[in-house]
């Protein structure tokens, strides 16, 4: 059973209250309890434990459910996806300015969206921390790769990651377990990419391929997203929060929807106010230090809603920067039919729950008409047939049909499609930001966010390049893309803001209070015992998935908090 408490017990002042149990919050809970702090961790969703069959659907077959894996309202990625949440949550709306296309994913469970992600775990490179110095766009971080490197190393050894040593200048190597060998179609992609001088290397996923810290290595069932019962991949709940609970110094409050950070007469944080979703009652916890890790935009929202006479615009918002400089990864996908893969001999091609190869950014933007890069994820194979199986068979050469001939089509074409997803860097811009909606509140009475979103030419040209590149790779593989090249009017097929679920910024870090919400320790400029440990402090998006950097920065912030506590400053 979860070691939760009702919150109704005798008043306690915790050393630290952490809001959110995803990558950032889980890491803070792990590191701070290890350092001896008495911590309370608040999670807006329910309890989850991968190791219990009550939760994990690992190794279930599609016919074990009448739904065959189709999505449900609280599981948009399929009924067996571990992550409870979505772009729409009943009673928790958000609003958008006219013309804005933005979708906001929220995870609502222990471990947050680390239950859901593809485990792609990329370090930011040295250039990613100083883009403005390099091309004049965006901003530099107040810290460098060298400041973060020791924490990346420690995250690698604590959580585990596979990959390969490549010595690429802006895609630093980590401390890797061996990467699994490619699947059949990945061999073809790799060979094609080599011919086209596109860097194609083993994937870097937070999945262990040898035992680590009491966790068994991966068993290659391909179902990472369902919650791994052997914890062979990384999810914050089982890999960070559970060990923190075992210290005896962590109190976990689930179904605790945080309303605001409370502050005292001196303007310093005194704890957080939350709604116990099980009873609907307003409650609070007191703490000497508050760490927000509710996701980039949820933490920003909490700070905006934490208004007091000391902080009339909310916490961390003396300069009005809160909610600004928000970004998401750019994305577009192209799939191709590869005739040479028709009738692929049947074998177990599941592997880990993600691609075994990927392409990091391989070109020099100085020679291109857009300033920032992207990486490419590759998919295809003989994955478990489930709801949605080979939808759109009419696109294959026969053009549709029915009967015995159709049945044969499904057999021969299964496994003959290969897809490419571009994931690129967006540069923060003045037209993309979040603010509190002056009218709308959620079911808890908390003011909601209103989003403004606009892609710049930078992103559109980058996505155009993705489309052209993926179509060229498919052609080089001897294949065919059925979807027409999207037009400029169609944004070249760019996914909506928020669709890639890599939102960052909103409470960015900086050198000076006048243009940032937190300092280089992710400590609020205007409230020294408030920290932000998720994606909100990010200054740039990079062409990398953000989770590994969220973990490293949370670890770094936790080390700073521990040092300040020991020094008696906090």
């Amino acid at each position, binding site marked *: 059973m979860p070691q939760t408490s009702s919150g109704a017990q005798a008043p306690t002042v915790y050393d630290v209250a952490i809001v959110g149990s995803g990558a950032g919050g889980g890491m803070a809970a792990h590191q701070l309890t290890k350092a001896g702090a008495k911590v309370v961790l608040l999670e807006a969703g329910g309890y989850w434990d991968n190791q219990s069959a009550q939760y994990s659907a690992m190794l279930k077959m599609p016919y074990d459910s009448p739904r065959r894996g189709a999505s449900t309202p609280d599981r948009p990625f*399929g009924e067996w996806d571990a992550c409870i949440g979505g772009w729409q949550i009943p009673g928790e709306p958000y609003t958008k300015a006219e013309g804005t296309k933005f979708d906001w994913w929220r995870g609502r469970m222990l471990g947050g969206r680390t239950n859901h992600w593809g485990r792609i775990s990329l370090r930011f490179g040295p250039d990613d921390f100083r883009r403005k110095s390099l091309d004049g766009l965006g901003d530099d971080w107040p810290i460098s790769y060298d400041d973060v490197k020791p924490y990346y190393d420690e995250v690698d050894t604590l959580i585990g990651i596979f990959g390969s040593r490549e010595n690429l200048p802006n895609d630093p190597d980590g401390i890797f377990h061996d990467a699994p060998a490619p699947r059949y179609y990945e061999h073809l992609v790799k060979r094609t990419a080599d011919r086209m001088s596109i860097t194609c290397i083993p994937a870097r996923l937070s999945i262990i391929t040898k035992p680590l810290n009491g966790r068994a290595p991966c068993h290659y069932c391909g179902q990472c997203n369902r919650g791994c019962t052997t914890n062979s991949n990384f999810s914050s709940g089982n890999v960070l929060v559970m060990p923190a609970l075992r210290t005896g110094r962590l109190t976990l409050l689930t179904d605790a929807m945080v309303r605001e950070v409370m502050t005292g007469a001196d303007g310093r944080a005194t704890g957080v106010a939350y709604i116990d979703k099980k009873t609907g009652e307003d409650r609070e916890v007191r703490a000497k230090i508050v760490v927000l890790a509710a996701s980039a935009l949820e933490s920003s929202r909490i700070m905006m809603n934490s208004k007091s006479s000391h902080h009339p615009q909310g916490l961390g918002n003396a300069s009005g920067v809160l909610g600004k400089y928000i970004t998401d990864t750019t994305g577009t996908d192209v799939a191709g039919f590869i005739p040479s893969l028709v009738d692929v001999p049947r074998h177990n091609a599941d592997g880990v729950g993600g691609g075994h190869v990927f392409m990091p950014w391989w070109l020099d933007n100085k020679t291109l008409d857009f300033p920032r890069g992207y990486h490419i994820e590759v998919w295809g194979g003989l994955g478990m047939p489930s709801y949605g199986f080979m939808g759109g068979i009419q696109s294959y050469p026969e053009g549709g049909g029915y009967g015995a001939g159709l049945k044969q089509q499904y057999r021969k074409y*299964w496994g003959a499609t290969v897809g490419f997803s571009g994931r690129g860097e967006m540069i923060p811009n003045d037209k993309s930001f979040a603010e509190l909606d002056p009218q709308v509140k959620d079911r808890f009475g908390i003011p909601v966010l209103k989003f403004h979103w606009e892609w710049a030419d930078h992103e559109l040209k980058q996505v155009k390049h993705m489309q052209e590149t993926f179509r060229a790779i498919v052609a080089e593989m001897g294949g065919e893309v059925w979807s027409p090249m999207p037009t400029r009017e169609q944004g070249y097929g760019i996914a909506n803001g928020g669709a890639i679920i890599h939102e960052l910024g909103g409470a960015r870090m900086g050198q000076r209070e006048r243009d940032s919400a937190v300092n280089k320790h992710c400590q609020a400029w205007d409230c020294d015992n408030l920290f932000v440990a998720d994606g909100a402090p990010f200054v740039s998006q990079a062409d990398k998935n953000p989770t590994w950097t969220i973990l490293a920065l949370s670890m770094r912030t936790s080390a700073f908090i521990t040092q300040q506590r020991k020094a008696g400053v906090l």
Partner: protein
Amino acid sequence: MSEMNRREALQNLLAIPAGLAMAPGALERAAAHAHDALEPPHETPAQGGSEQGAGAQSAAARPYSPKHFTTDEWRLVRLLVNYVIPRDARSGSATDAGVPEFMDFMLGENAGMRTWMKNGLGWMNAECRARFGKGFVSSNDVQRREVLDAIAFPKKSAAELKAGADFFSNFRNLTASGFFSSRVGIADLGYIGNRPVTTWQGTPPEVMRKLGL
């Protein structure tokens, strides 16, 4: 599945609602037409066009009672899924694999899908009635195939049949979803994953050879 595979899968899942959203008024008009006074109380299967014609097992033996199909719709849907995926030398038919029951469950999950299905089956009946003076179930195998041939290849189907062709494409997707995610369909495909593997061996050499890798 990887993150991007799941995104792709999500797009596939959305294919049916998207198809619904695009279903033009013609489908609804056809469905309304199907409900007019010409509709007999119950369709009687044609002599020469029984379910065996589409390779089905006996439907009468099944005790399943559908929750979201009328008796007539259930007859039609059990026929139609087997036209899409009949029994052959390797595996059973869509009804053998429980596809109609799967559809009945999914209709219970999704009101939009219920409307789409009813309109689509209504379109099938209306088209048969316009051509042969009787609904799909009462038409014979040759007649049914005439209609299917006209809508099963959307790029080649006539513009005025677009509503039916769109419906059939989505119906085919749903049938394949139900069939290939069943025990029968998984065995047919030869899917052998989703099981613990001690050591990942990569791609077997014979597969590499066959694919010229």
